[in-house]
C-alpha cells in the first residue's frame, strides 16, 4: 500500500498526493496483517459470478488502524467474526483477459 512519507499515514485507494498534507506517497511492503473493523453477510446476488452468501468487510492494516480496505473475509464462519478479529491477507490470483490480477482477500490469522 501507499504511505505518506510526511505524516506516515497509509493511503487507500492509492492517490497521487496524500489527502492530509499533499506529500507524494510511496509504496511500502506491509505485514499483510489486519483487524476487522466492520463486516456484513451479503445475501443478494448483485453480480454474475458472486453467488451469495459471502462476507464483505472493512479491515484496518495493523501498521495504520486509521486506514481501511474493503475486502472479502474467506475461510471463516460468519457467526464467529468479531470486531478487531485478527486477519491476514491471502491474494486471489485472477485472470482478466491477458492480465493477471491479484485481489487481496483476508482470512482469520491462525
Amino acid at each position, binding site marked *: 500500500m501507499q504511505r505518506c512519507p510526511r505524516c506516515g499515514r497509509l493511503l487507500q485507494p492509492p492517490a497521487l498526493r496524500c489527502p492530509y498534507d499533499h506529500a507524494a506517497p510511496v509504496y511500502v511492503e506491509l505485514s499483510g496483517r489486519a483487524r476487522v473493523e466492520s463486516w456484513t453477510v*451479503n445475501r*443478494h446476488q448483485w453480480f*454474475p459470478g458472486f453467488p451469495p452468501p459471502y462476507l464483505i468487510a472493512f479491515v484496518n492494516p495493523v501498521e495504520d488502524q486509521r486506514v481501511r480496505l474493503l475486502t472479502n473475509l474467506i475461510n471463516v464462519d460468519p457467526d464467529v467474526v468479531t470486531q478487531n478479529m485478527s486477519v491476514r491477507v491471502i491474494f486471489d490470483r485472477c485472470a482478466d483477459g491477458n492480465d493477471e490480477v491479484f485481489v487481496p482477500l483476508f482470512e482469520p490469522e491462525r
Partner: protein
Amino acid sequence: MSHPLTDQIIISGIGQSAIGRRLGRDSLELTAEACLAAVADAGLTLADIDGLTTYPGASQPGLGFSGASLRDIHDALGIKPNWVAGGVESPGQLGAVVDAMLAVAGGLASHVLCWRSIWEGTAQGAGRRKGYGSGAGRPSGMMAWQMPFGATAANLAALQIRARMLRYGLTREQLASIAITQRAHAARNPAAIYRDPLDLDTYLSARMVSDPLCMFDCDIACDGATAFVISRAEHAAGLDHPGVTVEALDCAHHDRFMWEGGQDITRISSRWSTIWKRTDFTVADVDVASLYDGFSVFVLCWLEDFGFCPVGESGAWVADPARISLGGQLPINTAGGQLSGGRLHGFGHLHEACLQIRGEAGARQVDGARLAAVGVGAANSGTTAMLLRRA
C-alpha cells in the same frame, strides 16, 4: 443574517411525473411530464425558460440511473437556454439545484428548469435489483475497489450500520423506526409506492439483503421524475402560490468521494455541517425535515450532521417513532421518503419540503411549517444541506 442567495432567488415552480414501481413508459416523456408541470406551476411557458440543469445527465447510462440527459430535454422541449449545466460531479444530487440558484443569482438566467429523472424500475425489469457496474467490463475509479469484492452501496450501508451497532449500540429496533415512520407517512401520500402499514415484527423478520441491513432499509427502485424552476426573486409577485427561498446552504465535502475514504465510517462526512453559521435560525426552529434515505441509516447520519442530536445518539433519539412522526417534535420524510415513496434520488426530498413550506402537503401537512431542513447525499456522492422558508 442573510444567505447571499436568499433575497435573489426563489423556487418558483415544482413538478412531478407519475411515479411507479415499473410504469413501462418512455423515460423522456416521463421526464417531460415533470418539467412541464414545474413550468406551469411557476406560471411560465417554455419560452420563458432560459436555463437548464440536471443531475446526473448523460454521465451514467445503463440500468435506468438517468431518465433523460440535459440535451434530451433541451431538444425535446425546444428550450433556448442562455446557460446549461448537467452532470454527476456535484455536491450530491441537489448540486444541480444549487447550480441553478447560482446561475439565477449571477444573472446568467432568469428562469432555470432543473430536473432529476430516474427509471430504474422499468430499465432493470422484473428481476432482482442489479448492482451498478454489472456487465460494464473492467471497473475503474471507485468501483475498481468495490466490484472485485462483489460489493454495492447496500453492502457499504450495512457496514455502516454494523459500525454504528459496535460503537454506539445502535439496535435494529431503533433503526426500524425510520422505515416504520416513513411508511405511516406514505399512507397519507397518494403518490407513494408502498402505503400499507409496516410494524416492528414484519421489519425484524424481513429478508436480509446484507446482514444487518434488511429489505425495508433499502429504497425502492422506481420510475419517476421531479423538476423545479428557479427564478429571480421578483417573480414571486407573479405566482398563485408562495415562493420558496433558501435560507442557508452548505455543500462542502472534505473526504474522498468514496465510502471508505472518510475518517469515520459511521458518518456521511467527517466534516461538521456549517449551515447554522449561515443563518440566525437554530436547529430548534426546524419544523420538518427531508433527509436522504437511499438507505435508512443515512437518516441517522443526517440527523446528527444537522445537529438534531449529538453524533452517536441518533438511534436512541428515533427509538420512539412518535418524535419523528407527523405531530411529533421533528416529522421526517413526510411523503414516505425513498423507502416507501420510491427512489426519486433526493429531488423527491426537496419537492416535499417545498410542498410543506407552501402549505400544500394535504393530509400530511405539518401545521405551521415555516422552516424545512433538507439534507441530500451520501459519503460517495457528496452532499447538499439546505434550509428552506417562504420567500
